[in-house]
């Protein structure tokens, strides 16, 4: 009997051991396999690193390439890097992650001790990780050639405390996009700018445009269409909402890095937004519409004016050319302001290196970042947005006349993050207040006041926790 039972028990034990082995087998991440083992062929140590990016441009250099996708550039760069790299036998795994899942994924992986080695993303969204001490300074991979080719303004943008934490690659200025066909249909021909122009309207003109789009747009041709995109479901695309709040002259942050939205001009801007919404100049349900929804509606010709940046703009044009989206005449305009000067901001995009605790991986990650951010061929991919390197701009300026328009605009740039710590959490404070304002739960003045109070609390807390201030 016992024999029989023992006979049954053996598979049970084997199963347990198997399961546990399975668990521990999965525990190792790419890094653990990485260090140490010498590869037989080349005689070099094998090092595996992971590169994460949020969707930027499609294709290695151009979205018209066959099989162009968001990871094409990094796969191409990794391949080129590995072929010429002589320190280690490197392997680079590229992964695209959704922009709205970035913080969730990074926090989970940071807390679990498995951060990616390299992350390519807009700097404003990543600054908090520098404050938290999760990033490796990149000062040693930035040489004089790079410093002279990339303007100082960009270096200021990626410097936290005394160190550089991101290698600038390109930048994405935020503007408005408009459907020139819809403008013409509403009799707004005189407001349509040139194809290579970023049109600047005064605030009065902009109000006239919205009025005409609301009343004169032929309903048979554009059914269910609205003048302007407005969204507040989450923090995606919130920089445009931040820009709208500055339209009446509020400067948003004071010199100490505290929010000062709660003044006459800040409230006026919030009232302007609320009135647009309530009077039907925007898509309905802004409180539960996301920027993605708004962008999709714009591409579907359901919105005449929406938000954009060079990557979104180029992707939209490429989709239209490829027949994936309805074709229309899409052009650029600035966010107007009461002073008449346009409001413009830019996202500097670049790579950062996370602390993984493995020196070899950090070394390879830094070498890879330096390689793709300075290789004369690879940096040309920055033409998909706006290059940060003057050498690339001068090479492509005839081919892309908009580069000059963006350059002219840069005189009106404002720093939307104010370089404050806790910016990621600060972003979570704005949209609930906008929602409360749109559904009428709070007046614009109350929403602005509450945002300022909650926002300053977040900044204060993050300032205390920042490792850069110690």
């Amino acid at each position, binding site marked *: 009997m*016992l024999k029989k*039972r*023992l006979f*049954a*028990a053996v598979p*049970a*034990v084997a*199963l*347990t051991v198997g*399961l*546990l082995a399975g*668990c521990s087998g999965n525990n190792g991440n790419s890094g653990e396999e990485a260090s140490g083992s010498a590869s037989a062929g080349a005689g070099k140590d094998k090092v595996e690193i992971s590169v994460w990016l949020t969707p930027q441009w499609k294709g290695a250099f151009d979205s018209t390439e066959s099989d162009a996708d968001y990871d094409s550039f990094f796969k191409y760069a990794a391949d080129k890097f590995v072929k010429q790299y002589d320190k280690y036998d490197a392997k680079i795994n590229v992964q695209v992650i959704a922009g709205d899942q970035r*913080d*969730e994924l990074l*926090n*989970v992986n*940071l*807390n679990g001790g498995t951060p990616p080695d390299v992350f390519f993303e807009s700097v404003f969204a990543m600054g908090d990780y520098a404050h*938290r*001490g*999760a990033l490796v300074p990149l000062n040693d991979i930035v040489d004089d050639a790079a410093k002279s080719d990339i303007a100082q303004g960009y270096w200021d943008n990626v410097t936290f405390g005394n160190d550089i934490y991101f290698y600038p690659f390109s930048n994405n200025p935020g503007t408005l996009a408009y459907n020139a066909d819809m403008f013409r249909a509403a009799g707004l021909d005189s407001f349509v700018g040139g194809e290579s122009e970023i049109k600047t309207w005064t605030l009065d003109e902009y109000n006239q445009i919205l009025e005409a789009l609301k009343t004169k747009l032929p309903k048979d041709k554009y059914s*269910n269409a609205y003048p302007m995109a407005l969204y507040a*479901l*989450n923090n995606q695309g919130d920089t445009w909402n931040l820009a709208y709040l500055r339209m009446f002259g509020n400067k948003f942050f004071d010199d100490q890095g505290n929010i000062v939205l709660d003044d006459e001009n800040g409230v006026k801007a919030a009232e302007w937004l609320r009135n647009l919404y309530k009077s039907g100049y925007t*898509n*309905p*349900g802004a*409180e*539960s*519409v996301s920027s993605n*929804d*708004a962008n*999709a*509606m714009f591409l*579907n010709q*359901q919105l005449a004016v929406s938000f954009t940046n060079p990557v979104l703009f180029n992707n939209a044009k490429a989709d239209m050319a490829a027949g994936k989206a309805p074709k229309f005449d899409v052009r650029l305009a600035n966010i107007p302001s009461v002073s008449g000067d346009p409001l413009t901001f830019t996202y500097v995009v670049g790579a950062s290196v996370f602390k993984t605790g493995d020196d070899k991986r950090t070394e390879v990650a830094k070498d890879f970042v330096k390689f793709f951010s300075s290789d004369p061929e690879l940096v040309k991919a920055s033409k998909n947005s706006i290059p940060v390197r003057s050498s690339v701009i001068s090479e492509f300026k005839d081919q892309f006349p908009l580069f000059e328009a963006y350059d002219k605009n840069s005189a009106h740039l404002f720093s939307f993050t104010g370089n404050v710590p806790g910016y*990621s*959490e600060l972003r*979570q404070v704005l*949209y*609930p*207040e906008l*929602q*409360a304002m*749109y*559904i009428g*739960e*709070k007046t614009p003045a109350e929403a602005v006041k509450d945002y300022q109070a909650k926002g300053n609390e977040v900044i204060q807390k993050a300032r205390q*926790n920042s*490792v850069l201030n110690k």
Partner: protein
Amino acid sequence: MKLRNPYLKENLTGYLFILPQTLLFLLFIVYPIIEGIRLSFYKVQFQKETFVGFDNYSALFSDPIFFKAVGNTVVFVVFIVLLTVIFSLFVASAVFDKNAKYVSFIRGSYYIPVMVSMVVMSMIWSFLLNPANGLISFTARQLDLSTVNLLGDKKLVLPVVIFVTFATNVGQAIILYIASMIGVPKDLFEAAEVDGASRLKVIFRILIPLVKPTTIYITIINIIAVLKIFVVIQMLTGGGPNNASVTLMYYLYNNAFKYNQLGIASAVGVIMFVITLLLSVPQLRALFKDK
């Protein structure tokens, strides 16, 4: 090696069989619970953990959104569980004694949404309800009705989420009730028929009392599931408008993964664990007593 203890020898195989599950249970359930309790007393930063006593709990109790999350979660639990139990009892008692093919058809129809991922269901509902380009809003506009944003109205958003969750999950309760009702001895119904009892009387006096263990089971699993309600909120409302639909689990998620406040998130987790435990103990006791 020879085992001396005859009792241990007798049960060795049994223990070996439950060993894998026990080890996994200790590793993936008990250890995280203990770690969660520990973290709730710490301020967790990337480079260090600092013991802060009950600071995380006091931060929670001074946050109005936490109380809103508690209130919303209670509303969800009460209404979704009540709706599920009442509706599935109604459907199951109406069809359980009909012909087998018909019963299978009903079971299948209600169970399909359970099989579809909650994420997919939420996306479909989101497509229907989106105020700007959703089908429901579009139809309302075509019919010249005023724009109704079911997800953007503080009074409507909770009923909508309750309905979506209920509609997606009710199939499981129906299946359990039908199985349980089919198992009720036929002679009881025959005796009731001989005594001239009406269908309603049969349902209320025989069927419902006899499927009580199933009712308790459905209530417990639904309470626990709804306490953790998250996917619908994340996909459909994002906790909005202005936190009107935020739940405990969503609040925990935001703190843990968006705001990186692991200590506070762990404190929410501990509170949810205690609530679930308190709710489950009397119900489990009743279940075991009945058996």
